[in-house]
Structures are given as structure tokens and as C-alpha cells.
């Protein structure tokens, strides 16, 4: 065991830190989930890509640096600490990306990876349907093979960034007689496909960050199938594992937020009397972020030694999502009556980012499989409790 970063790792971290300090936009970008903000964030992706920071752990052929897991974690820590803009193509890079590497054909790799890394093609996830949320296997959107195309009919919803994305990665039912997990396929759908209508839906913070997708005889070329026809469920589950575990929520995000929370505490206590119980909550959040960091490094070491992430991804998902909610709730308590202010209030502290962060955090225990379902998975697959 040696918990120090190597000289190479420290050099890498310094390089990231220096580049970010010099290149982060002087003015915050407009919110990502507005048309202008979306394009501004796409521009930032391009800047990252050109400097080689967009997908550091990808092969060089697609714009990456082929760094290891630890370096990627360090990159994320620096990225979040720097306060750099949010990553508009996260769903593409971290959810679809690993699945494409695992299941895509060489042609698909050539076609999709680099534009994804460069922000030229921004991706949204088209999985949930109005009647298929937690119960993903009940998906009913159909894609029927017709010559070289699939013809899609149905509806997807809660599609983050779906209003302006260039592509969607969808799970669809290609065997109309199938049930549950069978007969599903994983399909890459261009946003400009004829027969696809998109309707923006406002998120809790008011931004139109979701979209509903309506497919009416929408034709998608069959070459856009990822994996085999009918193999969609197992392809999708590979992505789900990424979604819950390391790839979606590197500790950097929470470490940075915990650091900012401690800073907020210091500012608040310099200004006025702060209830002593609140410091205790600040410490809880800080410790949870620290624990998440080190559990992640331990996991990274295990993975690098050939271990599997498996169902422990569910433990990580529950932990980070609840830590994130508590951390932001603590910040709001610190802010007192300023807590409810949003960005355009003149006296909003830190531009209202604690409230918007709280709203965002509240989605954590819901998406990527509710925490209730994660806890079932932990009990059944990690602990071996009986299902029925």
C-alpha cells in the first residue's frame, strides 16, 4: 500500500490544474439547459478536446490520453475543484462511451467516438418511458425492422439534454411479441430523424433540461444498432453499471462541493453566529466526501488488479447520492433565509448555486435506479438475502 500519488501522477495533476486555471472561461457560461447555454457548453467541449482534456482515459486515436483510472480520478478532482463549466456531453462520454467501446463495431468506433469526444455530437439517453421508469424492462417503444431501417413508434421521456442533443441512445423493443428483458435492442438515433418530435420539459429548477421524444414511424438505419438485435438488455446493463459506479460520479465532484461547503461555513461564521450543530453537519459532509474518495481509490486499485465492480456500484450510488443531498441541505441551513434565493436575486450567495445544487442533488436518489432499488440489489446480490 502506498497512498501517495506517483511523481508522474503529480505531474499529470499539475498539468491539469495549470491548464484549467489558464483556460476556464472568465465569465460563467449561460445555463447548460438553454439553447444558447447548450451551444456555449459545446464550445467548451471543443476547447477541452483540442487541448486533449475531453476524454483523458480514452485511446489517443479518439482524442484521449490513455491514462489510467487513478489519473482519471485525479483529472476529475481537479476539474471540479477548478469550477470549470459542466460537461454537456457527460451522458455520451461516460454512459454511452464505455458501452460503445465494449459492444461497438470498429466502424462504429470510427464513426462515433471522436465526434463525441469533440462535442461535435452531443448525446442524450432515451431509455425511460412514461410507464417504464424503475421498471425498465417494461419498455414498449417499438422498432420494427424494415429493410435496412428500423421503424420506431412510441414515446421516451425524462431524457436529459434531449431537447438539443444531436443523437440519442435508445432502448427499443425490436421483437413485438417479446416480453420484459427479451426482444430489446440498443439503437443509436440521430436527433434529426424524420418522424422524431422532441418536446422540452422543465426540470425542478425551471430549466428545460428534460425532453420527451415522440417517435411516429421514425426511420433509423439498422447500422445504428449497438450490439446484436435482441441483445439490448445486456448491452444496456453494461451502461447501467457505469452509470451507478465510478464513471458517473467520480469523487471529485463531492470533494469540491465539501471544500466549498467548509469555505461557506468559514464565511458565514465570520459574519454571524452560526448554530454549533451546523458545523457538525459540515464535518459529516466533509467526512463522507473523504470516505467516498478513498473508497473509490481502493476500488480503483481492486479493478486495476483485475477485480470487478459488480454490485458494489450500487453501494457507491446510494452513498454519493445521499451525501450530495445532505451536503447541499447543510449549505442551505448555513444560508438561512438566503437559502431560498435563486440566481437572479441580487443577494443570492454564490449566485444561488447552493439551491440549484440542492435541486440537482435531489435527483440523485431517483435516477439511474432509485436508491430503494439499489438497496434491494445490495441486499440480494451483495448480501445474498432471498428475493421472495
Amino acid at each position: 500500500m502506498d497512498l501517495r500519488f506517483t511523481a508522474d501522477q503529480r505531474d499529470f495533476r499539475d498539468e491539469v490544474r495549470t491548464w484549467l486555471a489558464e483556460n476556464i472561461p472568465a465569465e460563467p457560461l449561460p445555463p447548460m439547459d438553454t439553447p444558447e447555454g447548450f451551444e456555449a457548453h459545446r464550445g467548451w467541449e471543443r476547447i477541452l478536446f483540442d487541448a486533449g482534456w475531453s476524454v483523458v482515459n480514452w485511446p489517443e486515436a479518439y482524442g484521449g490520453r490513455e491514462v489510467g483510472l487513478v489519473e482519471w480520478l485525479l483529472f476529475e478532482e481537479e476539474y471540479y475543484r477548478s469550477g470549470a463549466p459542466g460537461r454537456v456531453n457527460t451522458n455520451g462520454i461516460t454512459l454511452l462511451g464505455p458501452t460503445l467501446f465494449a459492444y461497438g463495431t470498429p466502424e462504429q468506433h470510427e464513426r462515433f467516438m471522436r465526434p463525441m469526444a469533440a462535442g461535435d455530437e452531443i448525446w442524450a439517453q432515451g431509455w425511460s418511458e412514461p410507464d417504464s421508469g424503475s421498471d425498465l424492462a417494461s419498455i414498449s417503444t417499438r422498432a420494427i425492422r424494415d429493410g435496412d431501417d428500423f421503424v420506431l413508434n412510441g414515446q421516451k421521456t425524462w431524457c436529459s439534454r434531449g431537447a438539443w442533443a444531436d443523437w440519442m441512445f435508445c432502448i427499443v423493443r425490436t421483437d413485438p411479441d417479446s416480453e420484459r428483458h427479451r426482444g430489446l435492442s440498443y439503437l443509436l438515433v440521430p436527433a434529426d430523424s424524420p418522424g422524431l418530435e422532441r418536446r422540452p420539459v422543465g426540470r425542478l429548477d425551471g430549466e428545460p433540461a428534460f425532453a420527451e421524444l415522440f417517435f411516429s414511424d421514425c426511420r433509423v438505419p439498422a447500422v445504428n444498432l449497438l450490439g446484436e438485435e435482441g441483445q439490448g438488455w445486456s448491452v444496456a446493463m453494461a451502461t447501467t453499471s457505469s452509470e451507478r459506479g465510478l464513471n458517473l460520479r467520480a469523487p471529485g465532484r463531492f470533494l469540491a462541493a465539501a471544500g466549498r461547503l467548509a469555505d461557506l461555513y468559514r464565511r458565514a461564521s465570520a459574519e454571524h453566529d452560526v448554530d454549533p450543530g451546523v458545523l457538525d453537519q459540515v464535518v459529516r459532509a466533509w467526512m463522507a466526501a473523504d470516505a467516498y474518495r478513498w473508497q473509490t481509490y481502493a476500488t480503483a486499485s481492486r479493478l486495476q488488479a483485475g477485480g470487478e465492480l459488480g454490485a458494489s456500484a450500487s453501494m457507491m450510488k446510494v452513498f454519493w447520492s445521499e451525501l450530495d443531498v445532505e451536503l447541499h441541505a447543510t449549505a442551505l441551513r448555513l444560508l438561512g433565509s438566503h437559502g431560498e434565493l435563486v440566481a437572479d436575486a441580487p443577494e443570492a450567495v454564490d449566485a444561488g448555486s447552493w439551491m440549484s445544487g440542492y435541486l440537482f442533488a435531489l435527483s440523485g436518489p431517483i435516477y439511474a435506479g432509485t436508491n430503494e432499488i439499489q438497496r434491494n440489489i445490495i441486499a440480494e446480490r451483495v448480501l445474498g438475502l432471498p428475493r421472495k
Partner: protein
Amino acid sequence: MQFSFTDDQVMFAETVRDILANECPPSAVRASWEDPDGRVPGLWETLAATGVLGVAAPEAHGGLDMSTLDLVLPLEEFGYAACPEPVAEHAAVAIPLLSGHAAGPVADEWLGRAAEGTALLTAGSPTDAFVLAAERADLALLCADDEVHAVPAGSYTAVAQASVDHARRLARVDWTRGPDTLLSDDPAVVREVLDRGALAAAAQAVGVGRRLLDLTVAYVAEREQFGRPVGVNQAVKHHCSNVAIALEFAGPSVHKAAWSCAQGEGPEGGDPSLDVSTAKVLASDAVDLACRAALQCHGAIGYTIEHDLQLWLKRGWALSASWGDAAFHRRRVGEALAAG
């Protein structure tokens, strides 16, 4: 010992509930978000006609000369409806304060119009930085150190501060303190402002919590996943039960505090401020729990601006934090307990 409301008190609350159900449905709350003053057209006038605005005003000024105890159930209804009108600040804080402490001319000038609803009063909490409906109000009760001032609209500036709950029109209020506006320099009166406001916020919070629970129970009984309602899952049941328990015990605590405030002392001679703080803690904790459970049980649908749930989530967060949050009020009681 008789711990129940009179039939008249219950009927009064039902009247308010019916009015709000008709005139302040979720669509009206939603529309108020877009209204320049955050209003529901016509609602204020209907409420004025029931007398609820002037419950606490003296009969001589057209009020009903009743107490906090008569207002507490209606205040729960205002929370249940997520009503955007600042009834609590007007009717449960400013009017009783003016009635109790204003000199004759000030009372004469304001109380009659306030009771009939032609003047809007508001009040700021000594714990909070901003004042609700200050831009729209005709008179604001404002605290500074140990003083309470009654400041007419022309004599203060109000800078709007957008809340996550767009129905709450907050503002930073500045004014020049002077003898003209001084209502009292007795710290007990500042405490009375806080107690009345905290109690009103607690009552509304309980109402918000009940609505969140009702919405959630209805949703999980209907929403199906895995071929059955999500409400059959024990985790969902327990989320709902926890909220029901928290509300079950917050309710009597709020009612007891209302009784104590109306009496000027607790049932066994205690300080009513401690009853108010206990009520506010239980109500804040209950509504916080209700918000978390409601959103979690709704899942993604509750996370959209198009679903009505957000109207109560945001009101719940705001009420929980305003007029002193749970930590503030626990500390107030803690100081008394530590002193013995």
C-alpha cells in the same frame, strides 16, 4: 383539559378550505408565478369577505376580535393550498401586533382597512433577511435590534429577491428608523413578532406536509411498475408512514402553541415562546421529511416543473427555513433547558 377545537373553529377552517379549493387550485398557484405581484385574481377579496383577514382585528375596526387559536386551522389550509397570498404575515402577525401595540392614530389609520382587506400589511422576521410581499404591501412591520417599526409603503425601499418559490415575493427592505414609525422598543414585542410569525409558518408547514402526503399517497397507489402499484413496496409504505407520523405529532404541538399564544402563557404557566419553538421545530422537521419522501416516492415525474408537486416542495422548504429554522428554535429551547 379539553384539547379540541370548537365546531365554529372547524367550520371556519372548512370554509377557507372550500374557498381555496375553488379559487386557488394548483393552476391558480402556478399562474401566480407569472403574475407581476404574485397574486391570484379575486382571491384576496373573497378571503376578506369571509372575515379571515381580520380575524385578529378588534371589532371596533371591523374585525372579529378573535385569537391565534381561531387562525391556526385556516393557516394550515393556506399551506395545504400553497396559497400565494401573504395571509399569514397580514392576518396572523401584522394585525395582532398593531392591535396590541399601535397608538390610537396608527391603529385607526390601518386596522379597519387591513381587516376589510383594502390595505395589505406585511411583517419581517427578526431571523430573516427579507420581507414577503414588501413591494406590494401598504404597511410593513419591521424589526431592528429591540425595536419594531410600522413603516408605510412610501417610507421604505424594497429590492426584489427571487425565491425558488416564485409565489413568494421577497424583498430586501431598507428604511430610516425614526420616532414616526416606532411601534415599540420593547424586546418582548420583537419576540412577539417572531413568535406569531413562527407559529403561522409552522401551521402552514403542517398544511403543506399534509398536501404532500396526500399527493404522494394518491400517486403511489396509482402508479404501476413491475406490474403493480409502487405503493405496495414496503420502502414506499414506510416513507409515507414516517411522514404521517411526523405530521400526527406536529399538529397538536402547533395547536398547543396557538393556545398558549392566545393565552399569553402555556397551559401550566410556561413561556409561550418555548411552545412556539417546539411547534416550529416539529413542523419544520415534518415538512422537510414530507418534501424528501414525496419527491422520492414520485420519482422523476415529481422532478418536472409541469407536475404540481413542486409547488408544495418549494413552499415547504421556504416555510421550514423562515421565521427561524429548526436549529434556531431548538437552540432557543436548549438555552432554556440548559438554564434549568
